[in-house]
């Protein structure tokens, strides 16, 4: 019933530039036959790869630590297992494998051994592929969405990338914005 909050949540997602189709997929109800409910699983190496991927999306900068430091590498597979319907789980899992194959194909190395610029190039190719093919969702969009969600709701994201006020105690709708002031986390 808290409508403004709901709007704000949507704004948050828009704010992080999710494509609208991704948002729809993330929140839609999926009713799936029982036999589609077998879940995917992820290895320790997968989590390392996802942490590296997340750190390409949200790297450490002068301003704040990146997604890997914020624990997004384990957040992503947990969210995939708990919060995504099987079809998207499988898209995600096979996309993760394809990213590994692409690393081998392009550089003859596994993803974790790539140099930073190689990782960036590879992730950029995945982005381009999603846009070119107008995919409603892909490994890239799901992993990117979850990186942004996980990072900006993490303690590092809330308190270092942004500023978190647990109990403001008052409302000032005409406060001065000081140059360089971070955005509120919530």
């Amino acid at each position, binding site marked *: *019933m*808290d*409508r*403004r*909050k*709901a709007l*704000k*949540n949507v*704004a*948050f997602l828009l*704010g*992080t*530039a999710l*494509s609208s189709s991704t948002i729809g997929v*993330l929140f839609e*109800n999926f009713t799936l036959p029982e036999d589609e409910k077998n879940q995917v699983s992820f290895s320790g190496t997968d989590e390392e790869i996802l942490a590296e991927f997340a750190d*390409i*999306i*949200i*790297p450490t*900068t002068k*301003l*704040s630590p990146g997604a890997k430091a914020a624990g997004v590498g384990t*957040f992503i597979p*947990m*969210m995939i297992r*708990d*919060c995504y*319907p099987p079809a998207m789980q499988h898209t995600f899992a096979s996309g993760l494998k394809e990213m590994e194959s692409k690393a081998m194909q392009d550089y003859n190395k596994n993803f974790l051994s790539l140099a930073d610029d190689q990782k*960036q190039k590879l*992730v950029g190719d995945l*982005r381009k592929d*999603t*846009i070119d093919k107008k995919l409603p969702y892909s490994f890239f*969009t799901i992993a*990117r969405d979850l990186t*942004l969600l*996980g*990072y900006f*709701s*993490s*303690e590092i994201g*809330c308190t270092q*990338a942004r500023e*978190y006020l*647990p*109990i*403001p105690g*008052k*409302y*000032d*709708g*005409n*406060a001065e*914005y000081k140059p360089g*002031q*971070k*955005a*509120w*986390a919530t």
Partner: protein
Amino acid sequence: MNINTNLKEQNTYDAIVIGSGISGGWAAKELTEKGLNVLMLERGMNVEHIKDYDSAMKAPWEFEHAGKLTEEQKRTHPVQTRDYPYQEANEKWWVNDLDCPYTEDKRFDWYRGFHVGGKSLTWGRQSYRFSDHNFEDNKKDGHGNDWPIRYKDLTKWYDYVEQFAGISGQAENWPLLPDGKFLPPMDLNCVEKSVKERIEKHYNKSRILTIGRTANLTVPHKGRGSCQYRNLCSRGCPFGAYFSTQSSTLPAAMATKRLTVRPYSIVNHIIYDKDTKKAKGVMVIDAKTNESIEFYAKIVFVNGSTLGSTFILLNSTSDAHPNGLGNASGQLGHNLMDHHFRCGASGSAVGFEDKYTYGRRANGIYVPRYQNVGNDKRDYLRGFGYQGGASRGSWHEEVAELEFGGDFKDKLSFPADTWSMGLGGFGEMLPYYENKVYIDHTRKDKWGQSVLAIDCEYKENEKKMRIDMMNDAAEMLEASGIKNVKTFDNECYPGMAIHEMGTARMGNDPKESVLNKWNQMHEVSNVFVTDGSCMPSIACQNPSLTFMALTARAADYAVKELKKGNI
């Protein structure tokens, strides 16, 4: 049937209140304070104020799924997940839909919470009086039946409930939105102030914009703390800063030592005594043990939410009341209404780059109804109001599609240069006899009860109004200097506003209505219904404040009648 006499005595009270939400809490408070021993029956779990608000003080990173729902939650809550209210942070306030199914002849989103406090814990807190326009509209245009009361009948009761509940707001002297006994208003932010000034100037004060009137305290009030501007209300407030059963009416009722609260008590039906022609009590199914138990009282207040109460009444059949208790009129279950919303317009405000907000205001702006009054004529009946507000978000228009990397991340660490400003309409729905609920005996809930079937839809009047809800909003925003104004209609189904009302309406004529002007059943004098089901029309304002006022008024009348020996 042999009934153990001692047990019967133990299970006898002066009054039974069915339900513990906004109106049930008020009934319990008023009846106990007037000296009655009251049993309050709640179908769900107990919730203790503050102690049981598990998530209230959690930081964003303390939620496992960053606020998102799991596949398992989506599976067990297929209705509650249709819209935003059910969230990770407040998941325990919403029903498992698989336990309590209902039949949708047409789509109807039924949001429910089974626990002490009911929706008083999760409500939007917007609190507006109805005006005489609202009480007279049915009579004037012939839709629905005439309200048996007018504003003057409710004025002192609005005063009374506002002063206890604590409603913050700004007096505006607007005929369609009477002023109340307000605590100091919350502030408009700089963009909202600018929009207010420009709208009021452009329309020469034939339209106004005011801060939302909300049941959030702006100053400490009756032992409760003031709002801390966290905007986390639906988790339960550890400061008691918004009105809920737990923060407000329940402590008052408990202080009399005349209140017994019984959680896990599903009222299956009201027991009718054909000799006295009154209700003698209720039959309860214990939600945990499935045991059936009877409780008895001189008065029964039915406050189980509009559709919950209507189910109980329809399910209370006897030779004298074959179609449901007090349903000789045939109106019980009919005239279901809900507000229609989710359409309006939004845009961006520039020129406020040097301003930001401090604190999170759990409130927005309000534009009260201005249509179909005076010289304003529309091609539909009744009208709508707007809720909305402005905020400076972190939305950066210049971010490329699916961008990533360090610059992108740093950009998201700062607020956007532009503010966004939106207006969302809340429209009145007319009462239509054919929008109805009835009992579907082919299906059963977890406790073996038949289920409710709902057959309700918006019609032409609502559809026409929605066009204006978008276009008027866009016009006003443009007149206010807002840029990139876009209209939206995100589609609305009855139930989504969670303002369902009307299925046991009040009226002067027993042939046309279920309740009289005191919310008392025409046919069963010791049964009172004071939740949303009593409403002959719904105006376009948020209705809970009116339920509170009607409940306090009905309780006052009921106790007087009881003392006179008339009940």
